[in-house]
């Protein structure tokens, strides 16, 4: 009567052997070591902090775009708001670092809730326009007020003495990333994640299942804003500076667009892919510099017509990075919709105790991307 997959029926539950556990344990240990290594450096760990912050932004945006299906083109606004509030409460009221960052989170969450309220009435393409305009508006108005920028010279703050080292701050960032990653995991295996996925695909069905669409959309925006605000606080303390120019156009919207590219290239709805993509885009400027100025590259790269302009000014690194990002985006959209996440799936399944398989039948990731559509 019904179409049945015989392989599923025949599949036995997979049990981990002792060797399997040991191998995976070793893999986790290796990962931990690699993550820890930058602690020994000073400049590189600062770059790595930025990479981790980008990864956090990826997780934040993923909740709204990947899990809830709404395209947000103004997320630099939340990052900046977190930085603005954190830096200013420290600068003006001398609040301790943890309290300052909490306030940054709350501020970003509050504004995200407002955007969420808008999202209840306006969806799809029109919502993405609103988010674009929102990003522009808030970064050019609120962020630029003299009182928040210490009269346009940038708010300077300092990390507490026990975190003065760049390497130490990097570890704080990594700890936050791991915590948020775990939170995201809990999100997806709980009723909240299921509710978001249901309402992303079919609001009527979600309601028939008892899911209040209003509440959950607001929860998604609030959560996304909170994580971005947290990233903003980390960002402010990383550079020990809040400068509105970091978030204003054209840097601002370029950053917002880059975050979207990150999410898509990482694989919408795939938290590991999004984190890896974020790390990649955060590190790429450094990597490009190292590549272009490497002893074995520079002599001949000078003569390559298009790329040789890289050496004219060091602001070029970020633009070549966004070009690479755009190319990766195109490749992902056309050839590999599941993004990095789909590519990494065999590995991530293995790490979580499953058999190593190149093709997974219950692969929902790609279809999740196909399912979303923009209604105008």
């Amino acid at each position, binding site marked *: 009567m019904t179409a049945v997959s015989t392989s599923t029926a025949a599949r036995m539950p997979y049990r981990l052997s002792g060797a399997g556990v040991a191998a995976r344990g070793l893999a986790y240990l290796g990962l931990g070591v690699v993550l820890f290594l930058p602690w020994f450096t000073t400049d590189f760990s600062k770059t790595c902090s930025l990479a981790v912050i980008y990864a956090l932004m990826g997780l934040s945006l993923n909740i709204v775009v990947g899990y809830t299906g709404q395209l947000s083109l103004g997320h630099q606004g939340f990052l900046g708001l977190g930085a603005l509030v954190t830096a200013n409460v420290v600068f003006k009221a001398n609040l301790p670092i943890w309290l300052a960052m909490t306030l940054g989170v709350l501020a970003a969450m509050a504004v995200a809730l407002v955007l969420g309220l808008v999202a209840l009435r306006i969806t799809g393409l029109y919502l993405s326009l609103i988010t674009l305009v929102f990003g522009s508006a808030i970064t050019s108005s609120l962020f630029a007020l003299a009182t928040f920028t210490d009269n346009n010279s940038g708010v300077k703050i300092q990390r507490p003495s026990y975190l003065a080292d760049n390497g130490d701050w990097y570890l704080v960032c990594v700890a936050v990333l791991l915590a948020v990653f775990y939170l995201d995991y809990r999100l997806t*295996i*709980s*009723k909240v994640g299921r509710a978001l996925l249901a309402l992303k695909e079919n609001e009527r*069905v979600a309601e028939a299942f008892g899911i209040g669409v209003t509440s959950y959309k607001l929860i998604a925006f609030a959560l996304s804003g909170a994580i971005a605000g947290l990233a903003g606080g980390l960002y402010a303390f990383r550079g020990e500076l809040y400068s509105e120019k970091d978030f204003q156009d054209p840097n601002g919207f370029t950053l917002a667009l880059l975050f979207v590219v990150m999410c898509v290239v990482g694989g919408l709805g795939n938290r590991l892919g999004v984190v890896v993509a974020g790390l990649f885009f955060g590190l790429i400027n450094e990597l490009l510099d190292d590549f272009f100025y490497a002893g074995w590259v520079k002599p001949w790269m000078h003569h390559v017509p298009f790329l040789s302009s890289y050496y004219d000014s060091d602001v070029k690194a970020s633009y070549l990075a966004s070009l690479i990002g755009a190319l990766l985006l195109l490749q992902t959209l056309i050839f590999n919709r599941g993004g990095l996440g789909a590519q990494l799936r065999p590995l991530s399944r293995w790490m979580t105790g499953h058999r190593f398989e190149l093709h997974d039948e219950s692969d929902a990731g790609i279809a999740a991307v196909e399912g979303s559509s923009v209604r105008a």
Partner: protein
Amino acid sequence: MSVLDVSGLSIRFGGLQALDDLTLTVNEFEIVGLIGPNGAGKTTAFNCITGFYKADRGQVLYRGQDVTRTPPHKKAAMGFGRTFQNVGMVKSSTVLENLKTAQHARVQYDVVTGLLGGGRVATEERALAEKADAILEMLGLQDVRDLRVGGLSYGTLKLLELGCALATEPDVLLLDEPSSGMGPEESHQLGERLLELRRAFGLTMLLIEHHVPLVLSVCDHVYVLNFGRLLAEGKPTVIQTHPEVVAAYLGGEAPEALAETHETAEDEALDEATAATRKKKRGA
């Protein structure tokens, strides 16, 4: 007390009066059928009753309580289970995930606890999975447990949708054409299943149906809708030969419709000719 009491339900879309003063009652443990030609307003009625549309006039009472303006997700929590005409499920998720999602209203832990985790969440999640497995077993769908819903056949989807509606722990089930896409054998099985479910879970049901044998075998009472208006109501056997109902389906006036069920002289002549031709063919 009646489970569902709909009175004077009316809704207008632009120039079209989709529902006009609809009144129906579903009593406890009844299986009530809602039939009528395509476009009669049956699904519209469902949407109004379950809260997806806001009716212009009228009232919906659930066990005496006015739920006319209650939003759909709250109705689900109250005990309204529903299926949709174009199979309503989360296509990109697995069957198991869908069944767990369907139990959303029954989950005890709140959002924050869900995010933080802990023993209680794990225990409840396990319970959700067990309930899901129980439903799958009851419907004979264990094999598709971990498959993505989007790739399944239509017949499986319809059955699954019923399973999701059951997962919401409903008091009253509103099924929109549960037998669509099914052949006579499958429809018959569905009918048996519905009766069994009523017995096992003490359910009350309201069915939109086109399949006459199913309506006959399963429904205690039938309402007929045409052009948004109640045309007739009564026992299925009575409705089946009700002249106006037949006319509505076949098109034409009542006396002609009755006449069509009698063989005319022309029909007899045609039968003889056909029989003769067949004999010739067998002979040759």
